[in-house]
């Protein structure tokens, strides 16, 4: 057991390394706090977050605000333009479009995050293993990814859903599985950088298991690219789930889901545009909001 050595100048030399007194206040959470502060200063991120927060609160609390039952036939007059009674007008069955637009956030914001979670979890697993081990398995996995990426995402989703049958569960699973290789590629490239670093070599010399090195040593250092990927994927998931609903392959009637509503209303686009316009605007703002968050996050993390 090594005995403590006499310091050349006790006290002074030992305090040598601290960068500055002011930085000491942050200590362990320093980096996270710095990122949060930078995010708060980023206009892009703050605007995006405000939009998304609005829709999330709406998806949770819409029953408190809606004037009518979104699925009820509340008006004998169908396809009405906006009025004081029905703010966004009524649809082809006499339902209140304002209530349906507010309520339509819930199915979208259920399907998209769950699908993203599956895709990110799968992508992290595949990316960590292929990036860490390289070799034949990596080559095969990456060629499969290339093949998958060659097809438009929506075609694969349509194909699978038409085989499995339309249902919310199937939509979530399909989007999640299609996202897995895309996320895996991002994670893999981050792992390839980290595994070259000396701390990974040191961990190996200590005799850590591969799983420990992957999940405890490497994973915490690639959270930045993963966070960016999550927000990007979320935007795509919202878009894809709306498209599948539009194609009648996802959520079914009488749900107020935006994609579904747009699909039904498009027949009346010439005479009564309200039924398409308002859900489409809602969908667009949500996707823009998510993408603003992704941009803000990327700018801050890449600084």
């Amino acid at each position, binding site marked *: 057991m090594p*005995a403590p050595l006499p310091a050349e100048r006790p006290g002074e030399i030992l305090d040598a390394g601290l960068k500055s007194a002011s930085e000491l206040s942050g200590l362990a959470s320093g980096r996270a706090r710095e990122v949060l502060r930078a995010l708060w200063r980023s206009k892009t991120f703050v605007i995006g977050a405000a939009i998304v927060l609005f829709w999330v609160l709406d998806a949770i609390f819409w029953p408190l605000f809606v004037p009518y039952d979104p699925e009820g036939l509340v008006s004998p007059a169908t396809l009405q333009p906006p009025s004081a009674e029905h703010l966004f007008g009524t649809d082809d069955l006499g339902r209140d479009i304002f209530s349906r637009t507010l309520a339509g956030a819930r199915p979208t914001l259920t399907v998209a995050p769950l699908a993203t979670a599956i895709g990110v979890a799968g992508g992290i697993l595949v990316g960590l293993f292929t990036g860490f081990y390289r070799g034949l398995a990596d080559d095969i996995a990456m060629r499969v990814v290339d093949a998958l990426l060659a097809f438009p995402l929506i075609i694969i989703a349509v194909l699978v859903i038409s085989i499995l049958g339309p249902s919310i569960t199937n939509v979530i699973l399909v989007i999640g599985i299609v996202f897995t290789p895309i996320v895996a590629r991002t994670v893999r490239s981050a792992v390839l950088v980290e595994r070259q670093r000396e701390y990974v070599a040191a961990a190996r010399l*200590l005799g850590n298991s591969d799983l420990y090195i992957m999940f405890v040593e490497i994973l915490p250092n690639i959270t930045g690219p993963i966070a960016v990927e999550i927000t990007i994927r979320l935007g795509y998931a919202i878009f894809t789930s709306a498209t599948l609903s539009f194609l009648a392959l996802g959520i079914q009637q009488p749900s107020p889901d935006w994609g579904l509503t747009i699909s039904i209303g498009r027949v009346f686009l010439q005479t009564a545009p309200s039924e398409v316009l308002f859900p489409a605007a809602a969908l667009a703002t949500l996707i823009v909001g998510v993408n603003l968050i992704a941009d803000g996050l990327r700018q801050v993390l890449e600084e």
Partner: protein
Amino acid sequence: MSTPQPLASLPQSGALAIEHLTISYLRRDRALPVLTDVSFHIEPGEAYGLVGESGCGKTTVAMAVMCYLPANARIEAGRIRLQEVDLTTAGEAQLRSLRGNRMAMVYQDAGSALNPSLTIGRQIAEVYRFHGGLDAAAATDAAAAMLETVQIADPARMLRRYPHELSGGQQQRVMFAMALATNPDLLVLDEPTTGLDTTVEAEVLDLVARLRSKFSASILFISHNLGIVARMCERVGVLYAGRLIEEGPSREIFSDPRHPYTLGLTRCVPNRIMRKDANRLDPIPGSLPPLGLAVQGCVYAPRCPIARARCREEDPPAFISGPRRVSRCFYHDEVPSIPQSAEALPSSPANGASEGDLLRVERLSKRYGAGANQVVALDDVSIELEAGEVLGLVGESGSGKSTLAKCVVGLLDASGGEIDFAGRKLARLADWREPQLRRKLQMVFQNPDTTLNPSHTARRILTRAARLLSAGGSAVDRERRVTSLAAAVQLRPHHLDLKPSFLSGGLKQRVAIARAFAGSPALVLCDEPTSALDVSVQATILNLLVDLQTKQRVAYLFISHDLGVVRYLADRIAVMYLGQIIEIGPAQEVFSPPHHPYTEALLSAMPAIDESQGPRIKLSGTMPNPANPPSGCRFHTRCPRFLGDICRERNPPWQEDREGHRYRCHIAPADLGPAQREATSSPAGDNNRPRAETSP
């Protein structure tokens, strides 16, 4: 002599004059001073060196002179005059013309300063076209002539090449060609040889010395390496925390410093006679004050061995401490009598009594690729190491030093050969080795910024190492082990709860050393552990390594490009060239003739502040491509003692000199020794200590 004298009373003429320059960086609406009241001047044709550790403001001076300060920098006070022009008030158009025609700069990293998508010829010719007003053909001719001036062989072909096709030394020569194209009055060199190998560095410095007789430019030479500045410059200024704390002729300032910081800098580097068993290095205690910290009194007082109450209250003015010398120290008269603070080691490391070899590497080879593209990184390498011994491993980058270390420690899979450790044959990869063997064989890495996991605190890193390397034990035992490891590497308890980004380079390296020592290793491989650190921090780390070695009888395989460090630390030295060991033996034997001509060249390329050097042994060309090594002796393409066909055709034999010292060469020790001794004792050559010459 102790009466304060304002610096302005010194002559302020000259090519460049900086007067009371004060610069701040704005960060989050706060102005952090980086330079405070810096004044110096450079005579026409003079080379002025600026030294100091990283963070002292050297590069800020260079950027201020070139008017390339970043957007958040603010000149608070002072003037920079290039002859009659005040650069701090000059307009952008005037600056552009000045930068091309009157002043030029050579950066540290030539690879990123050159445009990768344009040919060398186009980039040099551009300077002639825009600043010299030549047409395209004339500019190309001028570029070729300039390449000849900076001693690039076959300029016509070089003009058509792209930067990535050039070696680091060639790129730096091209930078010099571009800088000198307009025959500037002032040449700013910011660490122009940092990152180059010692032999290439020596060539570039020789080139600078030779160019000075051709061009009349004044030179501002910025470097952290005192040896280089001592060799290249007539006068030197020492920067500390943004203040010019001492100035004087370079010969005197390092041999007879009059500021405690300058003295500290000269003492913390091992010199030619220092050995680990006789002398401890003398590090400067403490560290640089953080940027923007308001200091009352002398900035150096917290680290100064002779600081008194007055130093902590009053800011010392510039004193005239001798002819042409200035020191910002109240007690500059006392500096020469400051004793060495570090005492010699209590006990010298036990050597002599041999316990047999701890490590035997036999005929180890490592090849990458196959067929025509095969690169042989290690070729038939055999070394042995006794318990408690330090084997220094030197050689230029690409010689295979790190590959050897990584094969030994089991991070790389050797292609052939055997490694025996503590009497057992080692599996090739660390994962396949038995835990108790792995524990005894650890490594300290080069880069303090990546050697620790940035997400984990120092305590977590050491606790994990203690858990895996010290067999068994409870959580309490591990905690005690971590505490004692931290104490052994002089880490304070509160450092343990910090993540690496809050630790300085030196502290990070201490955590890395503690991690390697967690299992009481028998052999630690040190891969350039101090090359990224400042000299004063390097001294504490080297002292620490020596202490650990003495107390724990651990052996080191110590890789370094710094021969001074290796000579101080190593019991035996192995020299590598292109994947082969070409010389191995006791340290003193390797450092004195007869030795391999390559070792001879490496030694003569060493810049030193403590003695004037003999003529330099020059190596021609660069290291050959390891995918296609030269036939016969691998060194024959660059060898200064090339014999002829025999070197080209036949693999050189091992020549045994004295016991344990051998080298690979066709020249026998009886012939090589006298020839090399004669070379070192002959009078100084023409390129030694260049004098300023102003060409008409």
